[in-house]
């Protein structure tokens, strides 16, 4: 395949950045999208140019490290697929492909296609956990968990934290990411004691990081490589409302950090 790429190049956070066009003349349809970029980079290195920086690690769709806008879509055109699992057979010979980093105030560009997503870690640090010190746990079967609850919790827990939801959202909202963790833990009996404090702390941190709000475009679900449902956002909103009404006056979190 012969392709033409328009790639966002930005030397560092302070640089303004611009699109640069590259020819990718010898691409096999069996390559993954990232392997295609590897080939382009090899050619750039051979010419003595700076290769395109992009984040990636597991290359099997689970670590959540890769992610880029491909022709305006987070992770590209294929549904429920990360960029590393997107294969070039999805494209046609002669295609023009535009590649950009995630765009969101809360995800500043580090270089080229690499962005800083540590805001997500701070949301988890604010309350995305169940406090369970090593050594203090009861027997695994001491508390039974209905299969339906465990399965639904797993649907939410499948989030890989890639940030596609934020990148796809016109408001750069992190509601799907936050709701997935709130729902995963809130659906399980083990997650009940901290349920209200958790949702309040996480939402407060999400706001502090500068993510936008949800106005029901549902682009997040469409872009999510794990197809996480927007219904979890409704669940989080319900939890948040209950928490603010019932815990009025109490601090958001008794012990959890503030990120």
């Amino acid at each position: 395949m012969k392709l033409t790429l328009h790639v966002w190049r930005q030397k560092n956070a302070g640089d303004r950045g611009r699109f640069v066009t590259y020819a990718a003349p010898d691409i096999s349809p069996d390559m993954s999208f990232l392997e295609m970029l590897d080939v382009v980079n090899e050619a750039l290195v051979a010419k003595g140019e700076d290769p395109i920086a992009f984040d990636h690690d597991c290359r099997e769709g689970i670590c959540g490290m890769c992610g880029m806008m491909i022709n305006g879509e987070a992770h590209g055109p294929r549904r429920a697929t990360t960029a590393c699992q997107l294969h070039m057979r999805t494209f046609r010979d002669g295609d023009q492909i535009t590649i950009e980093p995630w765009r969101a105030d809360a995800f500043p560009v580090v270089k080229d296609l690499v962005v800083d997503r540590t805001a997500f870690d701070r949301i988890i640090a604010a309350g995305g956990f169940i406090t369970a010190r090593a050594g203090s746990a009861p027997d695994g079967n001491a508390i039974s968990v209905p299969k339906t609850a465990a399965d639904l919790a797993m649907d939410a827990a499948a989030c890989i934290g890639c940030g596609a939801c934020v990148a796809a959202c016109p408001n750069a909202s992190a509601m799907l990411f936050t709701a997935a963790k709130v729902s995963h833990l809130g659906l399980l009996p083990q997650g009940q004691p901290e349920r209200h404090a958790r949702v309040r702390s996480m939402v407060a941190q999400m706001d502090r990081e500068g993510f936008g709000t949800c106005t029901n475009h549902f682009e997040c679900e469409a872009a999510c490589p794990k197809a996480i449902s927007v219904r979890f956002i409704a669940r989080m909103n319900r939890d948040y409302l209950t928490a603010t009404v019932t815990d009025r006056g109490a601090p958001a979190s008794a012990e959890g950090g503030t990120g």
Partner: protein
Amino acid sequence: MIELRSQIPEGPIERKWEKHRFEMKLVNPANKRKHTIIVVGSGLAGASTAASLAELGYNVKCYCYQDSPRRAHSIAAQGGINAAKNYQNDGDSVFRLFYDTVKGGDYRSREANVHRLAELSVEIIDQCVAQGVPFAREYGGLLANRSFGGAQVSRTFYARGQTGQQLLLGAYQALERQIGLGKVAMFPRHEMLELVLVDGKARGIVTRDMVSGAIESHAGDAVVLGTGGYGNVFYLATYCKGANATAIWRAYKKGAAFANPCFTQIHPTCIPVTGEHQSKLTLMSESLRNDGRIWVPKKAKDPRPPNQIPEEERDYYLERQYPSFGNLVPRDVASRAAKRVCDEGRGVGPGGYGVYLDFADAIKRLGVTVIQEKYGNLFEMYERITAENPYQVPMRIYPATHYTMGGLWVDYNLMSTIPGLHVIGEANFSDHGANRLGASALMQGLADGYFVMPYTMGHYLASNKLESVTADHAAFKEAEARVAERVRRLLGIGGERSVDSFHRELGRIMWEYCGMARNEKGLKAALEKIPALREQFWREAKVPGENEELNQSLEKAGRVADFLELGELVCLDALERRESCGGHFREEFQTPDGEARRDDEHFSHVAAWEYAGESRRPIRHVEPLHFEYVHPSQRSYK
């Protein structure tokens, strides 16, 4: 000269850990906050260690090269985690898990370590359930289990095909909680490039900030490495692209012995290679072997598509050769069998290096819905990569490098031969012998982190008088200068050839001569080719860019430079171990029917290599292994 003191406690095996826990010294709660522990790596082992030590009150600094600790490659483990809960009432026990693991490791692991692992397995499940890990459940709400490669009981706990992800997120969340509380300082996008010793003890590290290029020193009272395995020395592997041996290699060059480097695991069920551009190999969970049947055509070079090959012309070779274990034989046995049939010309798919993993019978027996529920995400992943639908056509699989049982030598307390340097998870050598059984890597990582390090770290700190050391100490300045010099050298090579091409070539040498089957002639050839390639690297590689920026070429170059040294040690160890055992198959040492033939008389030991200086042959030390409870026998899965 190093000494290998395993520190295994006295007493009957089932009492050793309990006795040791009582005998170890404790650090007073008020004193814990005066200690700083450095943890490198944030996978299952690193994250659980960092979180647990912080929960106890220690100050922890944790480092990872990814943008977040949640990315570590433990996340990619699919199948599950073993625990001797015996919830299924099918005859499991701590002793049986211990027995299976020692036998599965082909009698090249320490009995005491493995027994402790089996004991702790039970607590790991409890801990993870309490953290909210959404393990698979039965309709009554209790935990579900499945059987997994090489085990005849159902002791594997799982969360769909994403067990590693869910366990890692549990540990990551515990870690983030401690970060939020200020007990852990997290350093993402930082790579450890040097270990710093003061008075012979590990007291800190030097890192490179991968965004700014800043070379920085970090001091502490002890260092823990949970930096994973070195399988990327083969280039094509199921590892993540960033996985590297730099941290353990720096430690090795500082005096930490490297144990059994030739014990590498080739996983039987990976998606076959499609071309030169291939950057990594993807594993298909071993759990697929519970329902899938492995076969090749009886006839060599059979051109027909699989669905047109009638039943009687198929060779279900594992079921034929190993009737009692069938498709569930351990990984090393299954991998070699696949290689054998492909070498006979009966392999399938482009290039002929593949075998079928067929679900047609399972779909007939259980229905599509059940198969979808069990393996849906794996089937989807396969379809994405190959554009073939495994519900209709059998999958094609082939073995690939997956895990390294070898690693830095540690004693029973998980401390290396350098005082204060602890090594956990895949980075150490301790529990899996010559072959790791399925669903036991996750178990080991978490056992080390949640339940071993919290005790043994306290013991180390309480038994050693540690002078206060800061990053201004001369040893740190010296190490920083060495790191800066190395970076300068890499950027200044000024050749024409890309770093990746060197890595690929090293991988080809390793796979060819030190892969699934090894022999003296091949290993000797590799021991000539690797140093030559290394020399060429330092002359002809091209590393563009500069240090003071995000420079992924520079990162890669440093890692490949280390692999070019480590590959040689792997081959040397493989050459010196003149027997076959587990994943180490020497063609000269096999039974008449082609199985691995151990030599217990001469090789029932751990080989631990000591660095002897640049271009000097490392020194091979030996820790003898004693088997009091599981008596070595020829492994038989027939």
